[in-house]
């Protein structure tokens, strides 16, 4: 009973938040709605008994990812309204729904129809965190290491990309230098 109430409540909240995220024209609404949606998603994980996953969801997504997005918003100056020109709304909605249903059906149908058996069944008596740890460091050790390496590469790539030409600042240059840079840019585009 509690589970059903919680499920429907959080389902409603999550859908509302994500809907706001994709439709609003205020960038700040999108950001905060997305963050709230992430937290509500973690509630599903708690309901499903995946405590550790829920905590990781909160810490990583809302704590780090959304904060980085907020940084990006401040950097790109999109904290206010964003102006976008949109095509036909109904085509977009229809296509998206169709595609989503297709994808889920393609992946979920085999599972629902056939009675799968668990590769790594949950052991009784051990908490979720212990089980996650056991599986992660035995069967999934290689993917785990690969994921760690991928994160490292991503970090290096992020630093290299973002740190490029950080010393170039338009506000500290005089008009001729800015003009020179503009000319350079235009030349590149035109040629």
């Amino acid at each position, binding site marked *: 009973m509690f589970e059903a109430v919680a499920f429907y409540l959080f389902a409603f909240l999550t859908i509302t938040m994500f809907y706001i995220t994709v439709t609003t024209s205020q960038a*700040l609404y999108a*950001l*905060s709605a997305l963050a709230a949606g992430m937290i509500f998603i973690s509630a599903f994980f708690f309901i499903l008994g995946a405590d550790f996953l829920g905590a990781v969801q909160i*810490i990583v997504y809302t*704590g*780090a990812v959304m904060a980085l997005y907020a940084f990006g918003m*401040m950097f790109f100056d999109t904290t206010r309204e964003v102006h976008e020109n949109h095509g036909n709304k109904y085509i977009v909605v229809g296509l998206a729904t169709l595609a989503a249903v297709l994808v889920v059906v393609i992946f979920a149908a085999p599972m629902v129809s056939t009675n799968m058996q668990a590769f790594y069944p949950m052991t009784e008596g051990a908490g979720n*965190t212990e089980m996650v740890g056991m599986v992660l460091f035995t069967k999934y050790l290689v993917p785990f290491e690969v994921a760690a390496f991928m994160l490292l590469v991503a970090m290096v790539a992020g630093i290299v990309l973002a740190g490029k030409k950080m010393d170039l600042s338009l506000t500290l240059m005089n008009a001729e230098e800015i003009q020179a840079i503009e000319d350079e840019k235009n030349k590149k585009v035109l040629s």
Partner: protein
Amino acid sequence: MDNAYLIETVIKVVVILLVFSALAGIGTYFERKILAFMQRRLGPMNVGPFGLLQVGADGIKLFTKEDIIPTNVVGPIFKIAPVITAATAFMAAAAIPFLPSFTVFGYEVHPIVADINIGILYVLGVMAIGLFGPLLGGMASANKFALLSAARAAAVFISYEVVTGLAALAPIMMVGSLSLIDFNNYQIENGWIVWSQPLAFILFWIAAFAETGRTPFHLIANDHEIIDGFGTEYSGMRWGLFFIGEYANMFFISFVIPIIFLGGFGDGTVLGAFALLGKMAFFFFFFLWTRAAWPDVRPDQLMWLCWKVLMPLAVINVVITGFVMMF
């Protein structure tokens, strides 16, 4: 899920809300008094005996003050940001055991709202959400200084969460559990963790200053640089909510540090309970003490300290702990 449990939980939640809201107010009084004494002043004296009713006067004034919502702000988010700060601060309290369990009228009371088995992760995660108060408040405020403060808040929280997590990781490895009750029980048998993990203790302590935004790292709402940071455009009780959130956060982190590192409430006697309160009081006092004594650091120094000093130390600490535990 029987009714008694439900009622007990509700009572606990209400008690925590009331006690810590009041404590946040009293905390401001203590801060003003202690800072005054350290600066050879008297502090609030005129209102009530020894100025004790100053908090009440401030509260009445803040409640009856006009509440301005400027034209250019993003209204709903501007209004919700102080609530986020206060709410996350109190949500973090759910997994903190404030006192040992005691018996009232033959009914055993556990002074913890929910003993979830990922207690530390939960506290850290909720404190991470606490970032969104300053962040959204600052970004919605249509004010340069508030925006600067929001950027600083994002930078400080992202960076110091890493330090907090890595510093807490070594004790977690030793205890083998994420529940704060288990931490307490482990320390009854094996002595305080601070003796075996002094470095982690200091790192966690330093990071606590950054996460609560207190003085050595008081960059988020720095009076002499960025007017009042994210709170620049807030007036009246909305600003008061930010204030309550900040002080409640200080109290909760003052509870968490002794529970993780300094033995918590021990074996649950009355003495142990008072010892925990005493430790909490010391850590809270230390927040005020540093505010009187130390200058602020610059934002770049703060980042430098985090990524080049504290984080390598934390990683080294984790590695050493792992080796010691393995062999």
